[in-house]
């Protein structure tokens, strides 16, 4: 099987400071990869480099494109990369405000993504938007409300609907359950798991929450000071961590 994403020696520095360094991994279709690590360890930097939001200094990000097979995303032209971002990738931000348009209705937020990939028929767009609101458990009658009127959990679910409506193959998430209370988190996780399975999505999830990765991720990558210091099956890394830092991380939480 061809990996969906093949990352080789990705490095990004901010002036003299390391963002992330020498990161390599492969992600296969249908796999969910979790990334954990302390604050400032380079998780967001890595995710943003992968998603084309930030230019890395060196490295390769080979994505298995629908049309032409594996290609280095970093060598693509800007319009090509932007199109890939709309059709094949999705990015769920920690703060829904960064991923939603707050002045546009809920339905508009979802519909806009469809229009960006060429949908024109108003009735069909609205129908799909309503279908997606339903799938993320937002009542259809809220379709014309602006996200500003939604709770944090609803905003996060709307962000997911907006991202998934175009049927992406890879979804990047930066702390998708951050700032939500535990019962809302559980609901969101359940939703994400269901969608990942139904749509055969691959996902890369950054989180500081080990309970979240245990439930969501097949594989886990642990970062420290910009480097990947440990990788493996999620339950293996959490239950039998090898690196000193991972042992500290796991032992400092009560139970996961």
């Amino acid at each position: 099987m061809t990996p969906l994403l093949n990352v080789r020696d990705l490095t990004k520095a901010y002036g003299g400071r390391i963002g992330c360094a020498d990161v390599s991994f492969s992600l296969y279709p249908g796999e969910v990869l979790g990334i954990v690590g302390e604050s400032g360890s380079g998780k967001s930097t890595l995710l943003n480099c992968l998603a084309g939001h930030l230019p890395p200094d060196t490295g390769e990000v080979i994505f298995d494109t629908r049309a032409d097979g594996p290609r280095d995303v970093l060598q693509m032209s800007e319009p090509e990369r932007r199109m890939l971002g709309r059709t094949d990738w999705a990015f769920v931000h920690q703060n829904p405000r960064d991923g939603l348009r707050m002045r546009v209705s809920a339905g508009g937020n979802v519909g806009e993504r469809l229009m960006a990939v060429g949908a024109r028929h108003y009735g069909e767009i609205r129908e799909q938007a309503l279908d997606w609101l339903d799938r993320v458990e937002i009542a259809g009658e809220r379709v014309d409300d602006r996200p500003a009127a939604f709770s944090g959990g609803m905003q996060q679910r709307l962000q997911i609907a907006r991202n998934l409506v175009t049927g992406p193959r890879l979804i990047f998430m930066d702390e998708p359950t951050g700032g939500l209370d535990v019962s809302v988190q559980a609901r969101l996780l359940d939703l994400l798991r269901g969608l990942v399975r139904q749509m055969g999505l691959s996902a890369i999830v950054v989180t500081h929450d080990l309970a979240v990765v245990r439930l969501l991720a097949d594989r886990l990558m642990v970062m420290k000071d910009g480097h990947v210091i440990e990788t493996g099956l999620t339950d293996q890394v959490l239950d039998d961590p090898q690196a000193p830092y991972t042992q500290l991380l796991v032992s400092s939480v009560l139970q996961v």
Partner: protein
Amino acid sequence: MITVEKLTKTFTLHNQEAAVIPVIEGAGFSVAPGECVALTGESGAGKSTVMRILYGNYLAQGGVVRIGDVDITQAEPREILRLRRETLGYVSQFLRVVPRVPTLDVVSEPLLNVGWSEADAKARASDLLERLRIPERLWSLSPTTFSGGEQQRVNIARGFAHRYPALLLDEPTASLDATNRETVLSLIEEAKAGGTAIVGIFHDLDARSRVADREVDVSAFTPKAA
């Protein structure tokens, strides 16, 4: 079906003065299809550790653990995931599930993962839940709020749903009443009759002598203090 050779396991506790704890040294045994092998040995001998290594949950420092044609100690995560989906089941001592997922779905999930239709998977799951006497009114609820014994029975139903060629059981009859214990023992006997290779830990001696064909004393692999 299961072959263990020269297995070695040590834990290095980096944050406790890098203490090195040798737990298993030179373990070897094998389990044929349709056979049940019981791991024995006093508390702390390393029974659960061996079982977790067989499942890929703990890393081995040395040796070979072959499940079918895969060496777990060398396999890539995604090979282990495939093995766990298709070949290797594990009934742990405690149920661990995603909150909010109904019991019926928890039990049918392993079947959906190997391509069963929704209807067939639910039918088999219902069958098992019925045999394990989980009242039908609970099937639509998440098991997170169930009693310990109920959770354990849901765990067992889930573990036995797909007929894995290899199955690991950690204390499957603990804290069950006589009737449910009997059901679990017959599930084990049926799995054996169906050709499943089983490794089990049973503190319940009657259960052990009834289902186990052989015993492997894990204390024999406890490293001697140097």
